[in-house]
């Protein structure tokens, strides 16, 4: 286990470096700059701004400045939000998205796995169809439809919940974002769990267990659940990263101030340091949770070797 973890940490460094390098140069290759605007700036004014942000130097120099800052844990000043640094912006917005994300993840995991198992055990019955129909609706209703629907229902027709805001994460402000965020994940987890469970129930060792006359709940929880979870966990790794890094729709509709908005706006505004900041964040989380998934594989199936 120790060698596995240290090996992964050692691999993470070059992986991140490659990610940073490719992203950095690709980003600078895109048309437009952080300071191009509808009002074309007079050349002298633009020159002063570019000088301040080193944009007048070759991209390769900018790259090394950036790496230099990064080594000291400095993600640089935001090109767009001039009053803040990227460190400050991420420190402010990531916890919001992470809180929504973790709640959504728990809800999605419990409901998704639950629905999937129930549907699989009653395969092709009305229970299966209705549970899966519900789950599928979650996939088809995109969150940009679901979010305004939630607001219409909970805040405009009934004044049950505030239509937006965050207020430090008070629970009334948390409910709608979690609904909008978790629905499609519930559905996807349910579908994968169901498929996997059906496959497991058809395999020889479950048949043997049945033949031995073991009670059904013991078969399910002691024998079938572990192999069923294998593909679910493969899915959950990237899904977890996606869920804690928020969604632009949730942030815009509910005004939560989460990090999701920064992904889209960072790129649209050509806020170079913001794009790099969120890319590094996602990269680190992806590497981390893929390692966690690999460890979980070994826990579930001790025969797995890498």
């Amino acid at each position, binding site marked *: 286990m120790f060698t596995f973890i240290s090996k992964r940490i050692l*691999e993470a460094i070059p*992986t991140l470096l490659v990610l940073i390098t490719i992203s950095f140069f690709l980003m600078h290759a895109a048309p437009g700059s952080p300071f191009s605007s509808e009002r074309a700036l007079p050349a002298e004014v633009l020159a002063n701004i570019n000088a301040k942000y080193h944009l007048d130097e070759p991209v390769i120099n900018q790259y090394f400045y950036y790496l230099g800052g990064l080594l000291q844990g400095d993600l640089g000043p935001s090109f767009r939000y001039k009053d803040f640094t990227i460190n400050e912006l991420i420190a402010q917005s990531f916890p919001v998205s992470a809180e929504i994300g973790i709640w959504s993840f728990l809800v999605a995991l419990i409901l998704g796995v639950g629905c999937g198992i129930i549907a699989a055990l009653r395969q092709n019955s009305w229970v299966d169809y209705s549970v899966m129909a519900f789950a599928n609706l979650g*996939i088809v209703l995109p969150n940009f439809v679901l979010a305004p629907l939630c607001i219409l229902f909970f805040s405009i027709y009934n004044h049950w919940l505030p239509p937006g805001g965050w207020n430090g994460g008070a629970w009334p402000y948390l409910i709608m974002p979690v609904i909008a965020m978790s629905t499609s994940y519930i559905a996807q987890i349910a579908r994968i769990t169901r*498929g996997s469970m059906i*496959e497991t129930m058809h395999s020889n060792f479950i048949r043997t267990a049945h033949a031995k006359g073991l009670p059904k709940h013991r078969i399910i929880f002691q024998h079938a659940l572990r192999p069923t979870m294998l*593909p679910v966990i493969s899915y959950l790794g*990237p899904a977890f990263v996606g869920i804690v890094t928020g969604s632009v729709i949730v942030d815009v509709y509910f005004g939560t101030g989460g990090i999701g908005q920064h992904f889209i706006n960072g790129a649209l505004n050509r806020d170079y340091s913001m794009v790099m900041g969120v890319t590094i964040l996602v990269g680190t989380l992806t590497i981390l949770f893929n390692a966690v998934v690999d460890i979980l594989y070994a826990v579930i199936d001790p025969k797995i*070797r890498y």
Partner: protein
Amino acid sequence: MITTQDKIQAIEQFAEQVTEVEGRSLWQDARRRFFSNHAAVISLILLTLITVVSLLGPLFSQWNYDDIDWEALSDISVLGRPNIENGHYFGTDTLGRDIFVRTLQGGQISLLVGIMGSAVAIVIGTLYGAASGYIGGRVDSVMMRFLEILNSFPFMFFVIILMTLFGRHIFLIFVAIGAISWLDMARIVRGQTLSLKNKEYIEAAYACGVSTPKIILRHIVPNVLGIVVVYATLLVPNMILLESFISFLGLGVQEPMTSWGALISEGAQNMEIAVWQLAWPLAFLVVTLFCFNFLGDGLRDALDPKDR
């Protein structure tokens, strides 16, 4: 044991009878199982129907997908309602364009995008994941780290640069969608492969000297198809919605052409005042997704090598 002439004859006769019974191949078996699954067959019929209607339906309307009904434009929330008389069976959008024709025209694009995206995911994702998991060791590490890089990469810049380099072309949507659709699939398949690798039959094949590509294609891939099919059906709606975001960035479908993703996101803006603008394209997407879903399950059951 002494065998008599009679017995030999009887055996020969029996053998002749046996050879007359036709052997069934794996694929015939699968087909038979598939067609006995009613939900899957109905879904297949419906999907075919939706495809045919998308292609031919526009011919049965007096409107083109880019026609503006200047009269209806004056008050969409009243004159733009679904109405048989003026030919707007599904109503009009905020510009007075016919939703019926646009939904069908959008269906052509979206079905193509959904199916192509899933196809790329199935082919590349499965092979990549299976290879990575089966070969293991350093190759697995490198392949997985590469996947992590692609996963975290700022996708929007990829799209923007594609557009500035090559201009707008429908083919580029497939490049952009194809570039990301297979990533999660590859991870899932790799996970399954890791566990399959230790199964007796794979070890037996390896011991018999079967080559690596053959083991992957013949033994690993058929055994992960179940989860691949399920995940591929999940991808279809994601791809359809992703297309509208790519169009937002300037690559992809260009107005006045449309797609379900674009229609739904436009409709969502006006759901309180003109619900038909959202309802029709969404209904088509829902039905299509359900069909893909049952079709996927049917295929999965039919192709499951364990289940016979």
